């Protein structure tokens, strides 16, 4: 149960007490992305001038598929958090701010779902 004055909550006064989580998540995902972008560079080297058979076989390998899924999810999560801060800092129109916030979150979630499905399709040979 919250001990906070409900009127203050209704007026949106004070912090939401979620800043530390956002800050930490942004950095933790950044740290993870250093490793995952390292894999992405390895993948780019491996797939340069590759034909379709080579590319689909590469992504279909379980280890590469795992890396690619983790990269897509972490990347879009990190992007979602970053774009949120940019919107909060520079978009001062209240309606536009909420709409862009919603679109950035929805876009990231949609991208994650789409990416995971296609990696699984290649990995499981469906």
């Amino acid at each position: 149960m919250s001990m906070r004055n409900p009127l203050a909550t209704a007026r949106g006064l004070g912090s939401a007490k979620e800043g530390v989580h956002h800050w930490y998540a942004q950095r933790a995902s950044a740290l993870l992305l250093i490793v995952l972008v390292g894999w992405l560079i390895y993948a780019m080297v491996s797939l340069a001038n590759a034909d379709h058979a080579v590319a689909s076989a590469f992504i279909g390998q379980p280890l590469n598929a795992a890396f690619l899924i983790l990269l897509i999810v972490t990347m879009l999560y990190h992007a979602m958090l970053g774009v949120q801060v940019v919107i909060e800092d520079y978009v001062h129109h209240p309606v536009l701010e909420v709409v862009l916030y919603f679109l950035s979150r929805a876009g990231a979630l949609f991208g994650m779902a789409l990416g995971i499905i296609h990696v699984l399709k290649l990995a499981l040979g469906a």
Partner: protein
Amino acid sequence: MYTKVLEHEAFYTLNKSRLVSRLPILPRLSEMRMKAKQRPLSPFMIGPYYKPQMTSLMSITHRATGVFLSIVGAPLLLWFLIAVSNGPESYNTMLALLGGWPGKFVVAATLLCLSFHLLNGIRHLVWDTGRALDIKTAQTAGLAVLAGTVVLTAVLLGVVL
């Protein structure tokens, strides 16, 4: 608006906790209102108030490259994946589109943004541990990031194009 809320809040606190003896707080509200109006705001780093500095320009570039990677880079990676998944025909269509000059430009811009955001992001992570925050080190690290960006972008372009 801020002062209005303050005033309202003070009344509310007073009534609720029946601290009528604290009423002398009320005359100070006009004083608070004055102060709120005169309170100096920190101006935005880009604009007429500050001389452009390498550190501030790299900071805003970090955000700009992050937004570019979110809007263009991530969809590009997903497009590549989906084209592979959809079969040889869509894969070759994608390669043809990316092989043209507009496609090459988008790929090059994405790799440039990725290189900068990756290396400058590491600089930010070091700062987050409380290290390298003095002006001189921050600028030296900034120059290293810029040099590294040129090298990494060139290497990646050599690999991909």
